């Protein structure tokens, strides 16, 4: 009886919690932060150690800041999340990817850059943080096509 009740209750909780959890999962404070430091603080990231195990593949020069391709990977064992920060963007936090056991800590995506800036990628593994930094220069062009 008790077990059934508990199971029902659990199901109910899941039903209610699920859509809300999906919405709440977007970290408003972190994404609304105006500096990289504040954004990382909101994500609970303090000191991140520079690491060669975190890699950022990005062009050194992007002709168009509206589309800057980046490819990020972590070879730190047990990486569970990758966080992307672009220091000079008005809202520096770009993305947080959480990986479950069947996913490799790898993402390729196009991002917007307002100006030349450092791109930082932080890997989370076993409660510790590791960081890689890479500068991408943004230029403009002529009249196009």
């Amino acid at each position, binding site marked *: 009886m008790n077990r059934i009740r508990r199971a029902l209750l659990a199901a109910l909780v899941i039903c209610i919690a699920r859509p809300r959890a999906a919405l709440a999962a977007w970290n408003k404070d972190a994404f609304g932060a105006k500096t990289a430091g504040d954004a990382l603080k909101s994500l609970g990231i303090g000191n991140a150690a520079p690491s060669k195990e975190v890699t950022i*593949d*990005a*062009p*050194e*020069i*992007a*002709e*168009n800041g*509206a*589309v800057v*391709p980046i*490819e990020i990977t972590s070879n730190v064992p047990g990486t569970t999340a990758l966080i992307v920060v672009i220091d000079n963007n008005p809202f520096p936090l770009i993305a947080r990817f959480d990986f479950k056991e069947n996913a490799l800590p790898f993402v*390729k*995506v*196009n991002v917007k850059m*307002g*100006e*030349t800036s450092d791109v930082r990628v932080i890997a989370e593994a076993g409660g510790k943080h590791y960081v890689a930094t890479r500068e991408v*220069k*943004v*230029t*403009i*062009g*002529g*009249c*196009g*096509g």
Partner: protein
Amino acid sequence: MKPIALLAALALTGAAQAQDTAKEIQRYRQMIAEGSPVELFEFAGEELWKRPQGPSNVSLEKCDLGRGPGVLKGAYARLPRYFKDADRVMDLETRLLHCMTTLQGRSEKDAAARVFGTADRPAEMESLSAYIAAQSRGMKLDPGVSHPKEKQSIELGRALYFQRAGAWDFSCASCHGEEGKRIRMQDLPVLYKPQFARPVIASWPAYRLSTSGFITLQWRMNDCYRQMRTPEPNFGSDTTVALIHFMTVTARGETYRGPGNKR
């Protein structure tokens, strides 16, 4: 924006670094090509190709792009060419317009009402171009060159390329006439010379990064004439087709690798 600081830094460095810059920009373009949303347009185009429309309520699937009704594989690489049923040379967009009017029973006015779209609302013609052009990837550009009307069209295209007109006396060659020139930072290919026409023509139509829209060769002709300060060319006119035809013939033999990506 700090492009100025960047460019200053670039200007101060030597030739070796200028070469690195070119290499890096090349790498940027390569990465862009790998992660381009161009497939979204191909996908939307496929739906449009198969969607019944117009008074006849039929799809474009029976449209003959030169290789027989409904044959898409390699069709784009063989355009522009002469079509007997229309008795004229047509490029892809002109031919699509023809199919919209003949097969779907739409008026030309309706079918050509909105041929250039925006990022928010791509034009039918743009998505269809993406879908159809993609099915010529890996094939050699082989536009029609033997029919008298094809020869006529190529010659007209060549003459148009050098025709000075408009409020600013420009011809196509005013900007695209000499090697190694650029407008602002944009390189200007000399499109009557094969070595320059080949890579350019082989990547049109294309996704345009700066506007997030899809652009076609008819759009390119239109917007060049706008900047040349002439009146507006009619969509699918002999003039626009002849220019596209001339440049495609100049690029003949190149392997088609579009739809591409433009800045």
